[in-house]
């Protein structure tokens, strides 16, 4: 039995309960999300999941805040420079919404720790900055059958995809040959836009909409303010979610 919303929660979410209902708000409160990466994408993702009332946020990142993060990593301030990102993020998110649980994990994703990090989560939010780490996350999403929302940015642009194991292409079907993970320039607004698209997709999915935005790669182009999408297909020979005949 789900506990009723408190008077404080009803007041906090007064402007959105008419849209999602008290049952929807309770659903968000009972949801667990894994945010992999507490950087440019992780910042808006975490803030808007917290604002919406997602009850349990597990956020992973091994890094400390540096000054060059601050053009896009809006979770942090000048005073956080040198602090572990997940520690500063947890503090900010809990002061923003004290009703939620934030679980900071100061680790890098690895084949050794990934299963434990994903276990029990309702959705995975890819806010990483390398495809090597993204593929570790993607494989575990497929193994455990946990939906994942991919996001990536570069320059003024970005991309987003909702991955539902067994129903949509996985990340390895979409990205057959990853681009180089160079230290690419990124405008903060691109990370903000993609992070919000991911947060929106996550909230819709957690509320029970499992049909919108499947099997497409959403493209944001901030240089001309355009949002497009291109269709993506499952690769039956995918070595992660298919029969593996395309391995190697």
């Amino acid at each position: 039995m789900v506990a009723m919303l408190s008077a404080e929660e009803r007041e906090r979410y007064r402007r959105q309960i008419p849209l999602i209902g008290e049952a929807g708000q309770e659903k968000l409160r009972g949801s667990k999300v894994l945010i992999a990466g507490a950087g440019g994408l992780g910042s808006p993702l975490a803030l808007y999941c917290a604002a919406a009332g997602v009850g349990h946020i597990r956020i992973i990142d091994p890094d400390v805040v540096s000054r060059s993060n601050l053009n896009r990593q809006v979770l942090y301030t000048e005073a956080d420079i040198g602090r572990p990102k997940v520690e500063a993020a947890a503090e900010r998110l809990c002061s923003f919404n004290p009703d939620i649980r934030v679980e900071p994990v100061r680790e890098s994703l690895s084949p050794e720790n990934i299963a434990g990090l994903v276990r029990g989560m309702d959705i995975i939010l890819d806010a990483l900055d390398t495809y090597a780490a993204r593929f570790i996350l993607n494989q575990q999403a497929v193994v455990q059958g946990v939906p994942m929302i991919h996001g990536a940015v570069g320059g003024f642009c970005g991309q987003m995809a909702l991955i539902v194991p067994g129903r949509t292409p996985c990340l390895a079907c979409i990205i057959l040959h990853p681009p180089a993970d160079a230290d690419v320039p990124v405008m903060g607004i691109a990370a903000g836009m993609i992070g919000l698209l991911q947060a929106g997709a996550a909230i819709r999915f957690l509320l029970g909409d499992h049909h919108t935005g499947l099997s497409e790669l959403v493209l944001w182009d901030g240089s001309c303010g355009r949002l497009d999408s291109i269709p993506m297909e499952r690769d039956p020979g995918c070595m992660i979610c298919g029969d593996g005949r395309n391995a190697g």
Partner: protein
Amino acid sequence: MKITVRAFARFREFFGGQFDIEVPEHARVRDAVRAIARSRPGGGEVLLDAEGDVQRSVIVLVNRARVAGEARETLRLEEGDEITIYPPVAGG
């Protein structure tokens, strides 16, 4: 024959968002991508690898269906086909 190109992200900035190009009858996807590269000075560096093929990371669709691997070299295009090119990004 004429085909339509849709380019996204930095390809849109470089080549334009949507335009038509002329390619020989029965041109393959690879030929069309090379024609796109030739349509702007410096286009080869943006779109092609050292062998003159489309860079492996680039997502290519023909009539909204993914074309990958060997099909980029073998699939023949027809008049009015639409080719989409998108360079995935990696940052977070």
